[in-house]
């Protein structure tokens, strides 16, 4: 019997960030689904409606934080899964940098899109 078990001990920055981003994403992903499928229906989305939401500073900040945390959590999860499958050596280093670059591009493009949506750039 396990009298006390916890894997919540220091296992590195990526391990810790994976759990911190998970806590944030649990709330924000559920909020995102509720807002864009139940409050506003996806089929009725328009640019003006999106712009009205994105021009609210709190919403804009939440969506950018959503993008950054989801990208880290997802890509780090993929990296961990590949390591579990036996990825090592040069291939591991190559995959790591491909994922880093893909994450950077995704976040940059996502923020650029968010700025267009908010009407900050046009």
């Amino acid at each position: 019997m396990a009298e006390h078990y916890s894997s919540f001990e220091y296992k590195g920055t990526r391990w810790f960030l994976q759990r911190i981003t998970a806590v944030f994403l649990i709330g924000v992903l559920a909020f995102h689904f509720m807002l864009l499928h139940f409050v506003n229906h996806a089929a009725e989305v328009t640019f003006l409606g999106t712009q009205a939401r994105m021009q609210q500073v709190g919403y804009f900040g939440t969506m950018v934080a959503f993008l950054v945390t989801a990208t880290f959590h997802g890509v780090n999860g993929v990296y961990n899964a590949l390591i579990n499958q036996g990825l090592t050596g040069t291939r591991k280093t190559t995959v790591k940098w491909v994922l880093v670059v893909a994450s950077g591009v995704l976040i940059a493009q996502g923020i650029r899109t968010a700025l267009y949506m908010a009407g900050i750039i046009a």
Partner: protein
Amino acid sequence: MSQSYDRGTIEDFGRWKEFSAGMWAWIFHKFSGWVLIGYLFTHIAVLSTATQSPELYTGTIRSLESLAIVRVLEVGLLAVAVFHILNGVRLLFVDLGVGLEAQDKSFYASLVVSAAIVIASVPTFLAGAF
């Protein structure tokens, strides 16, 4: 101290019939994670039409949403997202040492609650699709 259980390598999918509930939870969590990160890249690509023109953005989303297959895929996306969230909560509790003894039951609960939420959401997701 916790005991360790040697159930073999989970990456050896060929012996799936021997997998325990916790191993299935691990596989479903990985699978739903792959789907979600794949969708994130696709989602940003579609939303990037906003950088071209408001009309293209609205038109692209309206066109996609008019396709029944897209609506059905959205239900699938909801299913993997809800399961990933609920099983993720379960994993956080296990990490904190809470509920480890009932980790198999909490996995089954994640599946049942995910199914209930998805079934209840189907009318909203498929409204006007057919």
